[in-house]
């Protein structure tokens, strides 16, 4: 069966070049990077080259990169680590209602530990209001965390303006760039952020490795205690092969950034075609969104049912953040954007990748109307 994978926000396929780069570190070069002998130092050198490559992707210095086990760990480290490191200065934190669960739940855990957290609302396009942020920050605010792009609706946030406002008031700024990395250019200096989370598997690297950019000179309380790994900021013997794969993935991401326009063009064709089906609405911002992202509410069609029905046609899409879509029917992101629960269950997310072709989009558009019609026929909500 012809297969079209359009769920690149959930994960991406491992690039063959990434796999080739990783293999030696799963076979002969297996040394522990903390050992000074040649087997250890060749692993350490490879890891440091990867650190340089990841740093280059976001215009940071290698010393500012802390490797983690995932984007979720990077978000946890940033939120919990920075909040705790600055708790003498203040106990107020600010984030948005549409962050990834790894960020939201880290803030909720801090609330239980005595911190005060403001969860900023978003508008119907999924944008955090800069004005509301400004009025939320107090002199006790130490950290603001707002994602660069949202996984479910693709909306890009005004992180640069958010950082300017937060810094004026003396708060640090973290952004979750997991969804954005590899899809848009990221420059930590232009964004003006103090911390930024990345994940390898959403940019054609392996699962099980992420990174936190932490601006030089900032203190952070570790999540995982051990010894000298990651300069004493994240314990545990490093996932050398994973980190090497991440380095290669970052190198490839830089190389492929100029293909964004091709992906955007295909994405626009997809949006055009999908919107031809009646009672389908684009969610998120029409322009200020990830170039590979198209998300919709398909009225009276349960998002999970659509995802499964399309998979039987060889088409793979998403219906919400991968880790929560299995347990929650209505998307909390869409609810936060003001959609009623009945409509927030009808989420369909198409995210294109480097290998998505015109033929793929044509195939999806040839199948989508029929699948929707079939599901609507059996939907108790469809009133035609």
């Amino acid at each position, binding site marked *: 069966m012809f297969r079209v994978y359009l769920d690149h926000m959930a994960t991406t396929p491992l690039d063959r070049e990434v796999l080739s780069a990783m293999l030696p570190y799963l076979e002969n070069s297996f040394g522990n990077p903390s050992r000074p002998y040649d087997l250890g130092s060749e692993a350490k050198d490879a890891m440091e080259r990867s650190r340089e490559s990841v740093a280059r992707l976001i215009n940071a210095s290698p010393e500012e990169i802390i490797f983690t086990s995932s984007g979720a760990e990077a978000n946890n480290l940033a939120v919990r*680590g920075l909040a705790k*490191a600055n708790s*003498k200065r203040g106990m107020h934190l600010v984030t948005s209602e549409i962050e990834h669960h790894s960020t939201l739940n880290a803030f909720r855990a801090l609330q239980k530990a005595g911190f005060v957290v403001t969860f900023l609302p978003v508008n119907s396009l999924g944008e955090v209001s800069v004005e509301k942020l400004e009025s939320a920050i107090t002199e006790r605010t130490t950290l603001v965390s707002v994602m660069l792009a949202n996984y479910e609706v693709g909306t890009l946030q005004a992180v640069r303006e958010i950082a300017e406002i937060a810094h004026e008031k003396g708060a640090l700024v973290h952004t979750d760039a997991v969804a954005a990395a590899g899809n848009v250019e990221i420059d930590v200096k232009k964004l003006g952020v103090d911390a930024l989370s990345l994940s390898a598997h959403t940019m054609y690297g392996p699962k099980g490795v992420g990174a936190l950019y932490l601006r030089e*000179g900032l*203190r*952070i*309380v*570790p999540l995982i*205690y*051990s*010894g*000298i790994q990651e*300069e*004493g*900021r994240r*314990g545990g013997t490093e996932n050398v092969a994973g980190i090497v794969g991440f380095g290669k993935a970052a190198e490839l991401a830089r190389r492929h950034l100029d293909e964004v326009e091709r992906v955007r063009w295909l994405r626009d064709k997809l949006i055009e075609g999908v919107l031809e089906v009646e009672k389908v609405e684009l969610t998120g911002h029409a322009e200020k969104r990830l170039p590979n992202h198209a998300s919709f509410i398909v009225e009276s069609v349960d998002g999970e049912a659509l995802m499964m029905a399309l998979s039987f046609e060889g088409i793979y899409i998403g219906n919400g953040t991968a880790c929560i879509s299995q347990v929650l029917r209505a998307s909390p992101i869409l609810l936060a954007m003001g959609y009623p629960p009945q409509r927030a269950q009808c989420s369909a997310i198409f995210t294109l990748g480097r290998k998505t072709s015109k033929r793929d989009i044509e195939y999806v558009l040839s199948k989508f109307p029929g699948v929707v019609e079939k599901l609507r026929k059996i939907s108790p909500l469809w009133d035609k």
Partner: protein
Amino acid sequence: MPKEPEIKFVEGIVPDAVEDVVYRMCPMHLMRLEERMKELKKGEILELQTDYEGALVDIPDWCRKTGNELIGVEDTGEFFKFYIKKTVD
């Protein structure tokens, strides 16, 4: 039994270099201390900041072994500032 080194608490020392390893895990305080001391000239002072309480034993011990002078420690309440003078090349 080796004699416990005595620690003098000080305030207002002006260092030539500062190394911040607050919240970094042991033994970063010793690794960075060694690295930074190599960069200093004889007579210069390093301020090493750490929240690791074990440093109250490790750093005096390191100074005794290497022959460098531990001028003293300042306790900020949140972390310690160790002042170490390079006295040997």
